């Protein structure tokens, strides 16, 4: 029960209007309406929140202010450190222990390469683990990779790198099959048919799920497989700089033990950078649905080594972050809640939009409802709108919520909110980095022998990503990066690893008169009350 009288009164209005709202199918916005809405309300359009890079391979590119400070920050280590002794030597070095890194490691191992994984926290401490809603694949009659392409290309504002997106949609069914063969449990009907739903912006029901633990189910299975294969995983060890050889090819990394701060050298023939996203940089002060280590480390490492960025100025604000209670502020309320029938309702009980618009459009519409339209519900942290969860069981019968979205029921249940009986309050939360390092279709960045996979990549989704295409991309491009990194490693004769690129980057900062006053990568957010950076 909501104790706050204003919230409780608004919840009453939502309940009273439920029977009417349930029969409404709010119209989808026209292309023009969407464009106008985004320009006025989407955080990506707030020019004062961005800064133009003055140094590095993407000089002139606009990025969030917080990211600019890190990209143009100083190294954590001295470029003149002794690099002669290698603590680790391997063919393929995978940096990052999330879904993309694990997929890459498995495929590199399968291809016969010597592979190791280093990860800043534990293997599986990653946004993959927190992905709830599902994974897209056009595997049903009436659907096709081309249809999937059209949805994603349009949803991403016609900006995706076409070859990458084509690979994503074409290899999607095989990605599901691969996961299934590893033992990932997908929601299926008794005859084996996948239970699939819509996501925002999909034209076919192609969202596959494992309840609302889809990412967790995938991640724990991949992690189990990495361990079964005997692939070394060095946890609590972060890459703090990449190593390049005399011809500018990536040749390993300098690592830091997160607990002892000891520096270690890993020499490799090829490197897969799979470090994930940036939610913990809290762009524009937004809360985030991301895991603790999401601090854009890979972008910093790659950028300093000479890799260009693509679309680093586009972020995804998930429309439905938890807005109440405070303990889960910003936590993800999966889009699947809308897929299975909950509608977005304003403070007055009105269904103000179609619940299955794309994420950027939905987020902007919620921000509009809570600002200029004055239809938000006042909460301790600001304003919010309702996600009318009781509608789900009204439409699909009792037990649906426990069966299809148990994690959501548990998350709110811990704070005394029964989502079967009461609607929940939501507001956009920083969710995903649409942009990142630019790659070729084989997953290689601008730096020879440096592959990138997962959320650290930019260009697969264009300027907005559809639900279910991220779990898909970490599998498709993670596996692909692992295979290509292994194949490439076979032909590499190791050179002399050095940090001269870091020296050069520092010199370029000096020359441009840029001093952001920070060292990077950031590694961990600063949440301790003493304000001391890690």
């Amino acid at each position: 029960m909501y104790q706050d009288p204003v919230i409780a009164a608004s919840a009453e209005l939502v309940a009273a209007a439920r029977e009417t709202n349930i029969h409404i199918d709010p119209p989808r916005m026209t292309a023009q309406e969407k464009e106008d809405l985004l320009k006025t309300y989407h955080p990506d359009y707030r020019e004062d929140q961005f800064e133009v890079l003055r140094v590095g391979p993407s000089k002139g590119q606009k990025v969030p202010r917080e990211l600019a400070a890190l990209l143009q920050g100083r190294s954590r280590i001295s470029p003149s450190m002794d690099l002669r002794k290698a603590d680790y030597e391997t063919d393929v070095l995978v940096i990052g222990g999330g879904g993309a890194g694990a997929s890459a490691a498995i495929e590199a191992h399968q291809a016969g390469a010597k592979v190791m994984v280093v990860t800043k926290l534990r293997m599986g401490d990653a946004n993959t683990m927190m992905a709830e809603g599902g994974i897209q694949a056009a595997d049903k009659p009436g659907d096709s990779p081309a249809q999937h392409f059209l949805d994603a290309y349009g949803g991403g504002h016609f900006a995706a790198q076409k070859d990458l997106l084509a690979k994503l949609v074409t290899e999607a069914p095989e990605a599901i099959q691969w996961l299934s063969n590893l033992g990932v449990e997908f929601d299926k009907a008794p005859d084996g048919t996948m239970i699939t739903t819509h996501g925002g912006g999909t034209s076919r029901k192609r969202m596959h799920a494992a309840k609302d633990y889809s990412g967790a189910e995938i991640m724990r299975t991949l992690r189990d497989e990495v361990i079964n294969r005997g692939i070394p995983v060095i946890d609590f060890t972060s890459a703090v700089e990449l190593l390049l050889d005399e011809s500018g090819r990536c040749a390993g990394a300098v690592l830091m033990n997160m607990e002892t701060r000891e520096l270690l050298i890993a020499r490799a023939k090829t490197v897969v950078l799979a470090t994930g996203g940036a939610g913990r940089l809290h762009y524009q002060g937004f809360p985030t649905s991301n895991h603790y280590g999401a601090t854009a480390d890979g972008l910093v490492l790659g950028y300093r080594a000479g890799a260009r960025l693509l679309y680093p100025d586009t972020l995804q604000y998930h429309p439905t972050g938890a807005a109440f209670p405070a303990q889960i502020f910003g936590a993800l309320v999966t889009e699947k809640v809308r897929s299975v029938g909950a509608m977005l309702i304003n403070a007055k009980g009105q269904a103000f939009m179609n619940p299955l618009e794309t994420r950027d459009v939905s987020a902007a519409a919620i921000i509009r409802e809570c600002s200029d339209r004055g239809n938000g519900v006042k909460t301790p942290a600001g304003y919010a709108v309702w996600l009318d969860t009781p509608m789900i069981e009204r439409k699909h019968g009792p037990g649906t919520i426990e069966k299809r979205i148990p994690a959501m029921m548990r998350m709110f249940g811990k704070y005394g909110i029964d989502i079967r009986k009461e609607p929940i309050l939501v507001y956009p939360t920083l969710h995903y980095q649409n942009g990142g390092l630019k790659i070729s279709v084989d997953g290689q960045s601008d730096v020879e022998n440096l592959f990138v996979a997962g959320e650290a990549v930019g260009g697969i989704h264009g300027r907005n990503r559809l639900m279910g295409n991220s779990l898909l991309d970490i599998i498709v491009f993670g596996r692909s990066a692992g295979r290509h990194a292994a194949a490439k490693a076979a032909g590499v004769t190791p050179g002399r690893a050095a940090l001269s690129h870091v020296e050069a980057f520092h010199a370029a900062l000096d020359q441009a008169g840029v001093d952001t006053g920070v060292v990077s990568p950031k590694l961990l957010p600063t949440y301790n009350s003493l304000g001391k950076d890690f």
Partner: protein
Amino acid sequence: MEQMVNVYLYGKRYAVPASATIMEAMEFAGYQLVRGCGCRNGFCGACATLYRIAGDRELHACLACSTKVEDNMYVATLPFFPLVKAVYDIEKVRPSQQIMMQLYPEIYACVGCNACTKACTQGLNVMQYIAYAQRGEYEKCAEESFDCVMCGVCSSRCPAGISHPQVAMLARRLNGKYLAPICEHLDKRVEEIKEGRYEALLQELMAQSPEELRRLYNTRDIEK
């Protein structure tokens, strides 16, 4: 002024906001977390925590990220627990009762104390899913254990030395790979794609002008 409570982090007292989670309370006290902090939202199991309220004998287990502090709460985190993980080849194992006997024989030493269930941070019926595993009922074990975040608190309380989360992990993989019904439309589509049947359609679409792509997108039919 926000209401404050006293919590004892590893026995040392700190006054923290009453609305804080245990994890936030640690940060409020000045801790820079490295271990014992992951998704911060109940999915990853990094922040298993044990606590007692002064004056109460009962020992509680929880996830620090999603549990509110209480006054006079004595907190000890369990950021790592040495679970036993048996290594196997998923292609070679089969969903027989024998496989559990081979890989996790200690599950048959369960004394039925139910300490695992009482300790589960997710409120799962842990002892029940171990019973299903003992009987080779992997589908039931998978379903019962599905919401497990592998935090390891159950195992820390087990007198028989069972690594419950790893047992469940094996059961779920056996179920997902061997017992769940085969998805024919998926296998068929993978074959069709391999044969190149969808290639022309995709290439044709990609070759369209930007204006035509916009038109196709904005007028596409949406499945009800």
